[in-house]
């Protein structure tokens, strides 16, 4: 069993006192930042990237493992106690969790979320450990045309799934692709879209764009419509989980994990779909369906587990194919690139030690999260009371600091604010931000793979669907594109057009 040996070695690397400290710091900071209102996991990781710049890669990724899971977990506290989820995958947790907190069962809701996250995170990390080397082994055989097909699929699903409007999802993706084209073309050395600005020759830094779209965009968006009477904060009160709660929670935890992990591994946009599916499943299977909508603990346990399991599942395509399928994964990929590492099948061979240390620290991070969060829940709650002016001033400060430290250049700070303005506009008109970050990171890779494939075939376009794998993936893409068009066509020919929807 190669991977078990490798994992044990990974634990050996990760369990040194220094690295344990990094893991602990990552979990603490990740949870603290993730709990802050308005900050989702993607933004947590993006904002905290600069802290890790001075660490060695192994230390940095160990810290990232903690930040990643900590940020995921932190979001659930916010949605349970504030009822205004920062991101789509926490909506379901907010539904029931907030009702529980309202009924004086906040502590039980937080506990089932914490333990559910632990159970799901651990089981899904086991699945990740078993699956990733297999997928990487298969992925080594993929050619450039296969990668190109996969990326087209990722572009399509990410634009369709993140956000509610398809055309706006594609618009967001194209903004990312455009920003990704800025800079010197790597194959011919010609400048593209640099507007004659010398500093743009190296391209726009992915971290700057991610922090700008998530953090600055969010700060400006909130500033433009700041709620001057803060949202009502519920106390984390009431008895802790009872035996009855535990009995009602463990099956949803396992079912949520079973739903979340496979969906996370698919190139279909992360955690939103499995959390909704888990909620629907728990509602159907529950012996107390009447409690749903009024604080059913199954409705917190299942979706929260699904959310965390999907977070681990997302790491499968990320580590083995270099394919980010959620905004958070895209930022993680940017972190890898910051260290000159390109996730993909080769990573397991070239930087195997690092990957296994990362996987080992995912287990460690999960245990630390559970140990920390049960006693510290009260402390996290206090973070929700930070006065908003200082919170958003701090976010801007950190965003600027992070961008400055990448190249020690004020030009990056200017870019940060300029792209932040785009992020504001996107929020105002309901364009999802995630596809832009995915497009920015995958665009240049997709172009490279396409040109490589066509160079090998000497310009013969049919090479793009010449392998079974690429043909299947491109067929899936075609089905995804054509199905809604056909559906719409049949609908409009059958009945009179539906009057345009008017917003409330």
């Amino acid at each position, binding site marked *: 069993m190669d991977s078990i040996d490798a994992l044990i070695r990974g634990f050996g690397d990760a369990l040194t006192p220094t690295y344990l400290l990094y893991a602990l710091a990552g979990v603490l900071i990740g949870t603290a930042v993730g709990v802050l209102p308005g900050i989702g996991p993607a933004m947590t990781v993006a904002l905290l990237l*600069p802290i890790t710049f001075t660490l060695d890669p192994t230390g940095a990724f160990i810290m990232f493992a903690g930040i990643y899971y900590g940020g995921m977990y932190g979001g659930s506290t916010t949605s349970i106690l504030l009822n205004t989820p920062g991101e789509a995958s926490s909506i379901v947790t907010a539904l029931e969790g907030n009702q529980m907190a309202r009924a004086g069962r906040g502590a039980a809701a937080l506990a089932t979320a914490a333990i559910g996250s632990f159970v799901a995170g651990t089981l899904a990390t086991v699945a990740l450990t078993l699956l990733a080397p297999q997928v990487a082994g298969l992925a080594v055989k993929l050619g450039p045309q296969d990668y190109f097909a996969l990326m087209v699929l990722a572009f399509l699903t990410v634009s369709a799934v993140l956000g509610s409007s398809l*055309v706006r999802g594609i618009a967001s993706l194209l903004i990312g692709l455009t920003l990704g084209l800025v800079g010197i073309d790597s194959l011919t050395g010609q400048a*593209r879209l640099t507007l004659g600005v010398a500093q743009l020759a190296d391209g726009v830094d992915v971290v700057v764009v991610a922090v700008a779209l998530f953090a600055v965009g969010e700060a400006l968006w909130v500033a433009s*419509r700041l709620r001057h009477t803060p949202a009502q904060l519920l106390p984390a009160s009431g008895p802790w989980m009872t035996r009855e709660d535990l009995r009602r929670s463990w099956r949803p935890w396992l079912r949520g994990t079973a739903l979340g992990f496979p969906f996370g591994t698919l190139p279909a946009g992360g955690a939103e779909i499995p959390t909704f599916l888990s909620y629907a499943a728990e509602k159907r299977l529950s012996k107390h369906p009447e409690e749903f909508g009024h604080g059913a603990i199954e409705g917190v346990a299942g979706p929260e587990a699904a959310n965390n399991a999907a977070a681990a599942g997302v790491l499968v395509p990320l580590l083995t194919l270099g394919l980010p399928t959620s905004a958070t994964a895209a930022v993680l990929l940017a972190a890898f690139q910051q260290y000159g590492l390109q996730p993909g099948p080769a990573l397991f061979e070239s930087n195997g030690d690092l990957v296994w240390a990362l996987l080992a620290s995912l287990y460690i991070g999960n245990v630390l999260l559970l140990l920390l969060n049960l006693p510290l829940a009260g402390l996290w709650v206090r973070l929700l009371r930070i006065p908003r*002016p200082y919170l958003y001033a701090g976010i801007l400060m950190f965003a600027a600091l992070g961008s400055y430290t990448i190249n020690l250049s004020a030009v990056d700070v200017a870019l940060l604010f300029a792209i932040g303005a785009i992020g504001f506009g996107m929020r105002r008109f309901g364009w999802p931000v995630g596809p832009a970050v995915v497009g920015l990171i995958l665009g240049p890779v997709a172009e490279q793979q396409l040109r490589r494939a*066509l160079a090998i075939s000497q310009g013969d376009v049919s090479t793009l669907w010449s392998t079974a794998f690429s043909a299947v993936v491109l067929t899936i893409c075609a089905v995804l594109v054509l199905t809604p068009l056909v559906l719409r066509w049949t609908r409009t020919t059958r009945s009179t057009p539906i009057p345009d929807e008017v917003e409330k």
Partner: protein
Amino acid sequence: MTAQENRGRAEIVPALLLALTGVYMIADGHSLRTPPTEGAIGPRFFPYVVGGALIVVGLWLAVAVWRGDRAEAEQGEDVDTQARTDWRTLGTLAAIMLLYVLILDPVGYLLSTVGLFAGTAWTLSARNPRSLVLVSLLVPFVTFLLFTRALGVYLPNGVLQTVI
């Protein structure tokens, strides 16, 4: 009247900007040369495809908005969905950010960041003078110490060069 109705057809502007970006991208791509060593498509192809897609999607979105299609603006813990866009706050913040970029290197990280923090907090209506001064001095100072001393990151000292 809610903000949703008030928003009207303003989204046509960014949609058309997308299309214009596409036109520019195709023009920019046109000036690229494809060396004979590079197989089939060269550096032009991607700008052409993305530029073309920008034009199509920009126009598609503009038409959709014209016909009444609206997406829901993003939700958030601190966002008042009923409020109108507060352009004065945004303008002040934009001015603060621009100033920050200009003075960051000459004046130095610490002083400019105190300005950024205090300015932002004030603009977002932090009005208690004592806590405003205290927090705006303390947070940037601690951050500065943490990054320069503990993490070893370089940050410009600026006018405080002799003191720090």
